[in-house]
Structure formats: C-alpha cells, structure tokens
C-alpha cells in the first residue's frame, strides 16, 4: 500500500499541497532545479523519508538524518512489535514538526503511525505545558494503551464482512495483539480437521472456493501455536496438514517449517507481512453463507476469529469459481487481488508524438510525414482496434507529469527512428524474426544484467565483480570526450565540433566502468544514449556518462541491494527497486527520490516504466505485480497469479498489455485497462529473465535460464480474449490452455542462459547471455 494514496484518502485536501511541493522539482527548468529543492521542501523530504520507515517496521532505510540511528542496527530486528525506540523516534519527530509549525505534517504523521488518539489525549493533557512529556517516559503507557485498544478491537468489529476501508492499513495494534488470545492448543487439530471434513463434504461447486481457506488458516493456526509456545503441538500440526496445501505454497511452507519458536517470529519479515496484511480470498456469496452457517452451528470461534482478524473475504454475487480459475489467480503472498483495487482508471494510451518537421530527402520520407506519425501509428492502430488518429482517449494528458523538452538531438533521433521503422519487418506467425545471439565469453565473474540502447548501437553488461562494461555493437568505436584543457583549444564554431571534442586516442570497442562495490544487478540506458544507470548490491544506483565514461551521481537511498533499475522512455526519470521492498522514483538531477512506492510484501525484483512514462510497474518476490501512478504514487493495479518471484516484465508497445515472467517458468499476460489476467504461456522450464514485445507488439519473445528463446503469438493471445463488461466486473476469466498454439518457435542456445532480449527498430531480435562452459 502506498504512502501517498493513504495520505490522499485520509486527507483529500492535502493532496494538492504535496503534489505541488514534490512536483516542484519536476517542473523547474534544469538550471534552477537544485535551488528549488533547497528551500521549502527540505523538511518535507526528511519527513517523507521517515514515514515509510516507520510503516514498514524498520525494514526500509533512509538517508535522512532523523533515523540515522537505525542504519547501524540490524535492520530487520524491529519485528512485530515496534520497539520503544521507534515510538520515541516518532514522538521526537512529531515534536520537531510542531516546533516548526508544520501542523499539517504533524496530523499526517500521527495518522500514519496510528497515534492519533494517544497523541490527542496527550495534547489534551499537556496542552498548557510544554510537549516535553511526549517522549521517553510515556512510551510505555503509550504502548499499553495501544494494546488495550486493539484487544478490544476484535469484539467491536465482529461484523460478518470486515470491509472497513479498502486500504486497511496494518496498524500497530494488530501487530501487538496478534495471536494473544489463547485457545486450547490441543484442539487446533480438531478444529482444522473439522473444517476440512466440512469443506470436503460440501457440494463440488463450493468446495474449490472454500478450499482456499485452508492455506491461510493453516498458517495462522500454526503461527498461533508457535506464538503461544506450543512448540511440539505446532510441529505436530504442521506435519499433519502441511501436505494438504497447494504445491505453489511450497516455498512459504519451507520458511514456515523452520519457525518453531516464539523468538523466531520477531525477526522474520515474511511472517510479519503475513500477520499485518490480510490474506485476501475471493468467495462467492453462496459459499460464504455456507461457511458462515457451518461455523456458527459448530460454535467454532477459533477459526471464526482468525477469519475475522486475519483474512479479508471478498464476496461476490454469482457463480462460484472453478478450481482452475482459482488456481490461476492464487499463489501470491497475500492472497488474491481485491476487486476494488483494480477499478481505478489507468491511462494506458500513448502520448501524442510531437510534430517534427522531417527534412525531406526523398519521396519515402515525404509520404511518411504526410501520413502523420506514419507506420508506427498505423500498426498500432491495428493492434489497438479503435484508436483515433489524434489523441488516444485512454492516453493521459500530455502534461500529466512534466516531461523533459525535446532537444535537437532527440528530434534527430526521432527522425532516425521513423526512417528505420519504415524498413521494419512486419512480423507474424508466418514471418518469424531472425535472432542474433550475443554470447558473453569468459565471463567467469558472472554476468548479472544486460541492456541494449533503443537503436541497438550500444550494449551494457553488469557483472558480479562490480564492474559495468559498455560495448559498441556497431563497428563504431567508443570514444571519450577530451579533457577540459584540450577542449579549450577547439574551435567551437566549426561544423564538426561534435566530432572534434572526441578523443581519438581512447577509441576502443568496450569501456569498463568501475565504481560499484557489489554485483551489478540492473543496467539501463537512457533513451538519448548519453547516460547509463546501474544498480548494485551495494545499495546504490549510479548514473554514468557515456561521453566521458565516468560516474556522475550515486543515488543512495535503498541501502540494501537494488535489484533493478529502469529509465523512463522519455529520459530524466528512472525507477529502482530493491531488497527494502520499495520502489523509488528518481529524477536524474535529484539526489533524493521523488516518490517511494511502498506496498510490496517482499523484495521488489524488477521495475519497468510504462511507454507513456506515467506509470511504473514493479514485480516482487511476494509473487505480485503492482502498477503505480507516477503522478500521485497510488497503486492502481495489483496482479496476482504467479507462483514464484517475478523476474521479468514487459509492456506491449501500445501500452495496453503487460507480460510478466517468473521463476515458475510461466509467462502471464495482463490487460492493464481492465485489470485482468488474459493469458498464460507455459513452456519454459526455468526462471524467465527476459521478456520483450516486438516493435509492433505482434510477437512476444521470452528468454529463460533453461537456455531457450521462445517466441509467442501475442496478437492471437490478445485477440482471443474478449473482455466484456461482465468478465471485467467479476474478474473471472476462463483462461484457455493454448500455450502450444501460441508458441511459434523455440530456439535452444548452447548452455547459454538468456539474460536479455531486445528488438531492434527493424524487428530483428537480439538476445544476450553468458556462455557457461560447465
């Protein structure tokens, strides 16, 4: 759940305030940008940084001063119960804000941390006197109050359907009180067996739906046993019932079986998530009634309590779903998607291309120009079905987020792009692309990331030995810019000044970039080919200049390994995601992030920008995919269905669809507009590390650890799926099992896992991977 969406919900009028301030840097011209950050938003920044830290229970890190103390301490030890220090820190921050008369921020922070009532009472108590009593000494009483409040909570909220607010945040009280109520430990097995027998005896149509209950109940009951120090009982419970769980929960069960002591619960992030976030189940009304009746008849309060407290049951009217339908959507860390989550409008259309006067050389170009953003638009029109020539109704406002202005060089590049695209090969099932495979030989140190520039002229590789290497994929060699002293001697008026500034002596086919101190897990070229981003285990993202081949900026903030980074298709912005479970949006000229996308329950493993740059998609180890709105930081789409960590994401060129690949070897296709899963491509036998749509979106290429590149007929996959209003409303789509039909080609490489795929502007597929001699 995102910080910003919460702010917006709680306090709609604050939104403008934040948006204005935070967006200031985006709007400002490059010259004055730093100055703009310097004055007003200074506190804002620090405050912004603090909040996610508190929310995610010490798992995130910050570069601000306020919490520098937590940096040195083991980050994940805060555990379920926020420690006293955390409370103290909170209170100290509040005081600081108050002193500086930042009342709005105070309100928000208090809400965020659920300290509302406590603080209120405090301020009432000590309104006259100083606020000094807010710290240290009162922390204990604070804590106790919180727990009392929460202990009372279960009774008060015993409504059958716990639909409070849709973004029901994990509040501190739940963490503290979880599992505090004692049931008879020996009866747990009886309860569970009772429920199991009941579910097995119900009608077939309900059984599949109710079976969803098994896993979350199993986990919660096990944790309760562990929490209450019934170690042997817990073990017996686990032994008895773990075999019944769906096979895609294996990984989690493995973590779970290691946990046998109350102390273990404290540091375990995975379980913390399980407890703080509610496991979401989707059940039809009939099935739910059945369950409710059963539990009430049996007075099975134990299970009922767990359902009330820890599960979120999303009830829908209509036919109960089949087993396969359920299986296709489940598997994530926190259950399924709530239906309301994916209702927000997403502007998935593309931005209008700027009008560029093409210098006309020949007839070809002329025709191209007259047809108004030729070829590419045309093909896109086919793929979109209905698309107006001028402005896509689904496209965001041109200035929805501020984008950098086009420079002359960008315009030149656009012209090049248009010229190239006229020569593009139209791909299809009968016309498969040629694949050129770039093998990295002698990569003993381990190739961890690869990227190509959009025009396929440069190739960058990130290695486990902390180096980044840039190769020229064309005969043109890489040259550095001359040194400042030498540059002074150049005649700046001459026509070939751009050529003259290059130092011929440094020409070589590849350049090494040194600077990271850990394996480089992500590399991304800027669209204008002037910069390269790399993210590393050392917790930084670095920006390199491809003119001087030196490091320009180190973006610190994640502090834990940064798994991926990606440049916006328009440049300037980039996104990064890492082990700290948040994705961050940065602008190249700011050393601090502009947005923090928090909500994933585990590492953010891959990040991609939407083609219109208004959205960012992140995939995570919690087996979910989230789409974030760059403008306000909201999570606008939440996709579940993968059974393993997600390692690759790709948007279709028209921005309408998303493909995702994970360790389970499956590619899933998603319709962003409707927020639905629309396809499943089975075939790979190992992690899929690379996904890419062809330039026209007709072919999806996937590359995997199993040493194959596979080509899929994505047009067919998208066309087969009719998404009418009904399916959109319920989200229940019968997925056709047609992977074999959609597979157009499979190409084995010689013990070379495929790390990256890229379509050139003419639709030649480039693949890259490190040859593995063993």
């Amino acid at each position: 759940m995102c910080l910003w969406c919460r702010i917006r919900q709680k306090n709609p009028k604050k939104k403008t305030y934040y948006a204005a301030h935070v967006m200031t840097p985006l709007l400002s011209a490059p010259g004055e940008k730093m100055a703009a950050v310097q004055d007003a938003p200074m506190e804002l920044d620090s405050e912004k940084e603090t909040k996610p830290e508190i929310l995610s229970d010490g798992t995130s890190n910050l570069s601000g001063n306020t919490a520098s103390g937590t940096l040195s301490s083991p980050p994940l030890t805060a555990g379920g119960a926020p420690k006293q220090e955390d409370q103290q820190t909170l209170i100290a921050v509040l005081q600081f804000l108050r002193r500086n008369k930042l009342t709005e921020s105070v309100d928000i922070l208090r809400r965020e941390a659920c300290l509302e009532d406590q603080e209120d009472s405090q301020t009432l108590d000590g309104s006259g006197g100083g606020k000094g009593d807010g710290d240290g000494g009162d922390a204990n009483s604070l804590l106790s109050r919180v727990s009392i409040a929460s202990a009372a909570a279960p009774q008060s909220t015993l409504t059958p359907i716990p639909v409070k607010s849709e973004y029901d945040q994990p509040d501190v009280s739940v963490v503290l009180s979880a599992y505090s109520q004692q049931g008879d430990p020996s009866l747990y097995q009886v309860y569970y067996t009772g429920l199991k027998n009941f579910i097995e005896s119900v009608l077939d149509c309900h059984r599949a739906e109710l079976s969803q209950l098994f896993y979350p109940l199993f986990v919660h009951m096990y944790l309760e046993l562990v929490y209450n120090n019934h170690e042997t009982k817990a073990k017996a419970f686990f032994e008895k019932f773990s075999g019944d769980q769906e096979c895609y929960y294996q990984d989690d069960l493995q973590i779970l079986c290691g946990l046998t002591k109350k102390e273990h619960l404290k540091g375990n992030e995975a379980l913390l998530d399980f407890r703080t976030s509610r496991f979401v189940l989707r059940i039809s009304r009939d099935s739910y009634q059945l369950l409710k009746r059963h539990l009430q008849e049996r007075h099975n309060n134990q299970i009922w309590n767990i359902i009330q407290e820890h599960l979120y049951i999303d009830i829908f009217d209509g036919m109960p779903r089949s087993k396969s339908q359920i299986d296709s959507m489940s598997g994530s860390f926190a259950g399924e998607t709530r239906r309301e989550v994916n209702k927000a409008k997403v502007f998935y259309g593309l931005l209008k291309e700027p009008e560029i006067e093409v210098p006309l050389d020949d007839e070809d170009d002329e025709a191209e120009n007259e047809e108004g953003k030729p070829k590419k638009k045309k093909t896109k029109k086919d793929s979109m079905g209905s698309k107006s020539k001028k402005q896509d109704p689904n496209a965001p406002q041109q200035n929805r987020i501020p984008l950098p202005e086009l420079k002359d060089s960008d315009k030149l590049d656009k012209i090049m792009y248009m010229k190239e695209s006229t020569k593009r090969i139209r791909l299809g099932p009968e016309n498969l692309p040629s694949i050129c495979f770039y093998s990295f030989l002698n990569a003993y140190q381990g190739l961890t990331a690869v990227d190509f520039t959009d025009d396929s002229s440069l190739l960058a590789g990130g290695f486990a030995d902390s180096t980044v290497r840039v190769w020229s994929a064309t005969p043109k060699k890489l040259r550095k810019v001359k040194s400042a002293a030498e540059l002074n001697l150049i005649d700046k008026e001459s026509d070939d000044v751009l050529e003259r500034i290059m130092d011929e002596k440094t020409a070589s086919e590849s350049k090494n970039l040194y600077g990271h101190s850990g394996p480089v897990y992500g590399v991304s070229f800027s669209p204008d080919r002037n910069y390269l981003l790399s993210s590393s285990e050392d917790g930084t993202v670095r920006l390199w200049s491809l003119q001087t081949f030196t490091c320009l900026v180190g973006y610190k903030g994640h502090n834990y390994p940064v798994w991926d980074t990606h440049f916006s298709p328009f440049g300037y912005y980039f996104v990064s995601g890492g082990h700290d479970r948040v994705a961050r949006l940065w602008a190249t000229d700011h050393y601090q992030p502009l947005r923090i996308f928090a909500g994933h329950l585990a590492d953010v493993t891959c990040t991609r920008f939407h083609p219109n740059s208004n959205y960012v998609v992140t995939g995570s180890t919690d087996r979910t995919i989230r789409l974030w709105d760059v403008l306000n930081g909201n999570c606008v789409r939440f996709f579940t269905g993968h059974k393993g960590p997600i390692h690759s994401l790709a948007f279709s060129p028209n921005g309408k669809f998303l493909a995702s690949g994970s360790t389970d070897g499956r590619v899933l296709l998603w319709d962003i507009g409707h927020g639905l899963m629309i396809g499943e491509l089975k075939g790979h036998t190992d992690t899929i590390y690379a996904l890419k749509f062809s330039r026209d979106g007709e072919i999806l290429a996937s590359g995997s650890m199993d040493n194959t590149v596979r080509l899929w007929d994505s047009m067919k996959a998208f066309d087969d799926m009719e998404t009418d209003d009904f399916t959109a409303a319920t989200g229940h789509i019968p997925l056709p099992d047609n992977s074999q039909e959609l597979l157009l080609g499979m190409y084995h490489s010689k013990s070379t896992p495929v790390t990256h795929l890229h379509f050139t502007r003419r639709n030649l597929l480039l693949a890259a991977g490190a040859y593995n001699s063993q």
Partner: protein
Amino acid sequence: MAEERRQKLCSVILPTESMKAIAESVGVGSLQEESCLALSEEVSYRIKEIAQDALKFMHHGKRRKLTTGDIDHALKLKNVEPLYGFQSQEFIPFRFASGGGRELHFYEEKEVDLSDIINTPLPRVPLDVSLKAHWLSIDGVQPAIPENPPPVPKEQQKTDSTEPLKAVKPGQEEEGSIQTKGQGASSAEVKGKEKMRMKPRSTHELSVEQQLYYKEITEACVGSCEAKRAEALQSIATDPGLYQMLPRFSTFISEGVRVNVVQNNLALLIYLMRMVKALMDNPTLYLEKYLHELIPAVVTCIVSKQLCLRPDVDNHWALRDFAARLMAQSCKTFSTTTNNIQSRITKTFTKALLDDKTQWTTRYGCIAGLAELGHDVIKTLIIPRLSVEGARIKAVMDGPVVSNIDKIGADHVQSLLLKHCACVVAKTRPLPDMVDQYKADYGYLGTMLCSHVVKARAQAAFQAQTVNRTTLTITQPRPTLSMSQSGLSASSGSRTPNIIKVPSSLTLMSTRPGTPTQPSPPATKYIVMATSAGAASTQQVRVLNEFVSLYLSRLPRHLYHFRACLTSDRR
C-alpha cells in the same frame, strides 16, 4: 506425493554433537545438553534464514549454483560480518571420518609449503570478457553452426535408430496434438510450424555450404597435407552440425576402403580409419544407423590378407591394431541385444582363427580384434588356443625357410599373443610362475609367456605401490596411428606420389560409385578377405554378411538415404 512432500519439509536441525564439537573448538569445555539443544535449534533456524536470503542473490546473479559469495551477501544483509577465507569457485567436498564413536565431516586442508607457492610460476591471466554474436535463428530456422546446439540431439538419434517404431516421424506427434487441440488454428500457421520443425529433418539435400564443407573435409582427410588433415579430423570430431552429412561420410569411408584395399593403398586406409575414429569421437553423432557400412570397412582393415604393396616392409600391423581398437569401441558403444554386434564379431574372428589355412596377416588381425574386446574374451578364446598357435609359430620359426613374409607374420603374431595374454594370465593364474608348468600348459609359447607374466606382475606391484588406492590395471600405452608410426614413410617426399592418390580423383571415385539408378549391390562387395583358402574365406564372408543383412533389413530407408545423397551430389 504428499508423503514425499512432507518428508522434504520436515524441519531438519543440526545435531547437538555439532554444537559440542564447535564449542570445544572455541574453548568451551562442557556444554549442557539442554543448552546444546537450544543452541542447535537457534543455529539451524538462523542458517536457514541466511540460506533463504542467499537464494535471492543466486537468482539475481542468474545462476543455478549457490556460491559462497551469496552467503556472504546474505550475511551482509543481516549486518553480520561475512566469513573470510571461504571463497572458492569449485565445489569443496566434505570428507568423512569416524573413530572413537564419533563421526566427523570436515574439509581436507592440506599443508602448503609457502616456498612452493612462491616458486611456482604465476598462472596465466584469464581471458578477458568478450562478446561474440551468432545467429540463433534466421527467419525462424536455426542454422546448424557450432555455436548452436546440434539440430538433432544425440539422444534422439539414438532412439531413432534403436527404436525405429517409436520415432515415427519427429514432430509428428506434437503436430498432431496441436492440430487436434486447436482446430481454430489457421492452416497457414500450422504450415509455418511444419516448415520450421520439419526442415532440418526431412530434406536430404545439403546446402551449398554443406556441400563445400563436405568436399573440403574429405579432400583434406585423404590429402597429403598432415596439418590440414589434423584440422579436418578435428572438425569431424567436434562439429555439431554434421548429422545431415553422416550418410555421405559413411559412404565415402566404405567406398574408400573397398577401393583402396584392392589397390593395397595403406596410407589411404589409415586416413579413412582415422575418419571413422573422428566420427565416433563426435559427441553429437550417433552412428548406429551407419554401422552396416562402417563395420565391414573396419573389419576389412583388420583381417584383410594384404593391406599394402610390400607386406615385408610396410607396417600394416599398426593399422590392424588401430582398426581392432575401433571395432572394440563400436562394440562397446553400439552392441545391444537386438543387433548382437559383439557376439557376431567374435564369431567371425574365431572362425578365421580356427582355420588352419588362414594367413598370418589375417590371423594377426583376428587375434588383435579379439584381444581388444577385453580380458574375458582373451581368457575364453585366445588362451586355450595358445598351444596350437605356439606350435604353428614354431613350425614357421624352426622349420625350413618358407618365405620372409611368413616369418615376419609369425613373429608379429607371437609378440601380439604374448602382449595380450601376459596380463590376463598374470591376473588369473596363481603364483608361482614356473617355466616348466607354463611350458606344459601353453606349449611353445610357454617359456616366453612365463617371463612376460613375471614382468607384468612386477609392473603391477610397482604401480600398486606408487599409485595409492588404484585398481591394478596395467595400462599399455596406446599409440595413436599416424603416418610416422605406421612405418610407411609418407613424409619422405620421393615416394609419396606413388602411394598416395591425387585426392580429388579419389573423392570422385568413392562418392560416385555408380549410377544412382542402379540398386546398391549386396554388401558382400565391401569385404575383402584373405582368399588363400577358398572355403574358409567364403565362410567368413558369410558370417560378415550376416551383419550386413541385419542392416539391410532396414534397407529401404537407408537406400533412400543413399539415393537421395547420390542424386543431390550429382546435381
């Protein structure tokens, strides 16, 4: 299934003994059992946690193998100082020891002399990372180049040839399922798929590049330049894309042997045998389908009465040895219960050996062929014959001078028998080695055999001393066959032109043996045996023919192969 899963998930914890051992190693003498238990549980849990984190690093490092580096990174996440000194690229095996009621697993850490390290020359600097581009696919078809895996994996070739019924038509099964499942699939799409999948299999025409390659390789293999030949053989032995050319190569070899045996062209026979060896060495090829051509050619090189123009001077014995080794290798690789290669081969050799009128050259070949098949064969088939053979040798050696050639032949047979039998006798016969006893058992050869056995025993004992824990095998240096060893002075310029044919003319001859319309004549033509005693030889020929007939039972397919290749060649 559930059982399995449950077992896998059972939480494993470290034994308390480990805790005790570790505690002792850091100086804590007596640790309570309870604290041991608590410790081991805690430690197991933490280790699991770290392992789970380390897995993340493995996944992101795009590897399948967990390294010590991953563990270090995982420790760093937990703010724990990484372990130093455990960097290792390779797998470090645990060693196991037990004693005093305790079982231990430990790393073997050898003491290293520093001066050794200092004095050893620096290892070579590893090669720098480099990029290499190749075509994985061209318009949807994967080209057969060394950079790509072989189009038809060896396993499939194997199943194709050993279970012809199962491998109906590659891809057909799949195709069928696709068509039945996806009726909506446009026919064009299916066609495209067919084209893509069938292409590498269904055509017998070679591309222009492949034809060129074939020509180059065959010319180099039988040409006069040794360097080129080495390169060509290397290519045959390693290139993964040869599958389609295999029928041509096999025909080339068999025809080449047929022609050159008649002409007694030893050098070319040797070259052709080396080609067979290279084909066998190629890890991507499975030769079973072509044995009906290759085995007669190889057997011919083993047992032919005459292989060279001047049997008294030229070392055709080496060729026989080499071919015998090839034969043994193919027996090992391809012999199955259905084709019975080994027993058929053994029968052939034995029959020739039993015949009194067999010439010394053929006799030598038979013995060599049998001996290469292993100790059991020597024990059951050769050793009982020792006295008979000994008598025959004695007759030649001591008797009136018949011909020099016979004498040389007898001499070679004698040394061959001694060489192979000595080690077997050494293994099977109990001590002591008495000369008289040997003489009584083995006749004329007894004396010499005895001394050889004594030598073999001594050598075995010596090896057992030096090499610890190795089984007693007396390894005999296996000379590779090359011109310098064959004794035929091909390198000496003066004689070369006489012996070696102009390569191009040979390829012409061997690749186009007749018009394609002519049906392939029965395979008898391939075998050129000693023909001094008519009856015996025809018998042998008959036995060998059995092989051929076995393969001819699958004739239609192969004939189709030949015809296709011949026609395409002609074109």
